[in-house]
C-alpha cells in the first residue's frame, strides 16, 4: 500500500506533465486542470491500497480515461481526431531529417549564450506548438512513450491498442515533428 508521502511525491512529480498532456488534448487550461484534479482524486480514493510502483501506470490510465470522458461529454471527440496522413511522408526522408536533427543535438549541447537563451525559449515554444498540432493518437503515444517514459507495452495498455500501433504512432509522430521543426529551421 502506498503511503501518503509516496502518493504526494508521485503526484507532485507528475502533475505538470499531466496538465500539459491534457492541455494538449483538450486545448483548454481550465478543463485540463479539472481533468487532472479528477484523475488525482480518483487515484487517491480508489487505488490507495495499491503499491507505489503501480501508481504511474494507473494514473496514466485514469488520466486517459478522464480525458476521453471529457470529450464524450463535450461531444466533440470527432473534431479532434485528425487524419494521420496529414503528417505523412516517405520513411527515407524522415530518417534523413532525424539524422540531421541528431547532428544538431550533439552540436548544441553546452554552448548556450544569453542570446541563445532567449531564442531557446522561442524554440521550446515552437516545439510545444508542434507537439500540440500532432494528431491526438500520435501525440498521446509520443508523450506517454518519451515524456512519461512508459515502455511500449505500458503505452499500449494505457491507450487501449496493440504494441504495433504504439510503435507506428510514435514513429509517425517523430517523423512529423522532425519534418515540421526542420521546416522552421529548428534542431532540438
Amino acid at each position, binding site marked *: 500500500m502506498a503511503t*501518503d508521502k509516496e*502518493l*504526494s511525491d508521485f*503526484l*507532485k*512529480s*507528475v*502533475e*505538470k*506533465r499531466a*496538465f*500539459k498532456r491534457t492541455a494538449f488534448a483538450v486545448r483548454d*487550461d481550465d478543463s485540463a*486542470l479539472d481533468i*487532472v*484534479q479528477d484523475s*488525482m*482524486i480518483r*487515484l*487517491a*480514493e*480508489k487505488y*490507495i*491500497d495499491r503499491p507505489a510502483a503501480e501508481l*504511474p501506470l494507473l494514473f496514466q490510465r485514469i488520466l486517459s480515461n478522464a480525458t476521453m470522458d471529457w470529450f464524450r461529454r463535450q461531444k466533440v471527440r470527432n473534431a479532434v481526431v485528425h487524419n494521420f496522413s496529414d503528417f505523412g511522408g516517405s*520513411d527515407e526522408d524522415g*530518417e534523413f531529417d*532525424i*539524422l540531421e*536533427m*541528431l547532428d544538431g*543535438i550533439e552540436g548544441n549541447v553546452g554552448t548556450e549564450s544569453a542570446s541563445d537563451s532567449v531564442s531557446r525559449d522561442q*524554440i*521550446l*515554444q515552437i*516545439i*510545444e506548438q508542434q*507537439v500540440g498540432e500532432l494528431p491526438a493518437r500520435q501525440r498521446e503515444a*509520443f*508523450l506517454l*512513450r*518519451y*515524456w*512519461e*517514459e512508459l515502455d511500449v507495452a505500458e503505452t499500449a495498455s494505457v491507450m487501449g491498442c496493440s504494441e504495433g500501433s504504439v510503435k507506428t504512432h*510514435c*514513429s509517425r*509522430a*517523430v*517523423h512529423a*515533428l*522532425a519534418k515540421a521543426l526542420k521546416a522552421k529551421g529548428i534542431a*532540438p
Partner: protein
Amino acid sequence: MTKTTNLTYSPVPDRDGLEARFGVRVASMLGERAQSAAPDISERLRFAREQALMRGQAARRQEQLISAPAAVVVGRGRSATLANHLGWWVKLGSAMPLALLVLGLVGIAHVHEKAQIAAVAEVDAALLSDDLPPAAYTDPGFAEYLKTNRE
C-alpha cells in the same frame, strides 16, 4: 518516475534508436517548458494535489473502519455486527437488567402474598381461639351456619 528509456547508441544507429533519441530529446525540452508553468497553474495543481491527498486519507480511514474489530463498531451503536460472538455478550449484558427486574417483581409478589396469608391466618386463629360472645347465638346467620354444619 525514475525509469529511464533504454537507448541504443551505436556508430550507425538504427532507425528505432534514432527515433528514440529524437523523441527523448524533444520530450526533455517539453519537460523544461512544462516546469516553468504559470504561477496560477502551479497553484491550482498544488490545490488539486492536496484535495486528492485529503480524499485519499479519508478513503483510507473508511477502509480501516470497515476492517476494524466488530466490538468497536458495536460501541458506536451499529447493529449490523451483533452476529459476532462479542455482540452476543453485549446482547446478554443488556438483557440481564430486564431479567433481574422480572425476578424482583415475582419475588415481591410472592412475599406480599405470603404476608397476606399470614395476616388472614392470624385473624382466623385469634377468632377461633377466642371465647364465643353470647350475642352470637342471637345472630340468624350464625344459627344458620351451625345448622348447616350439623347436617
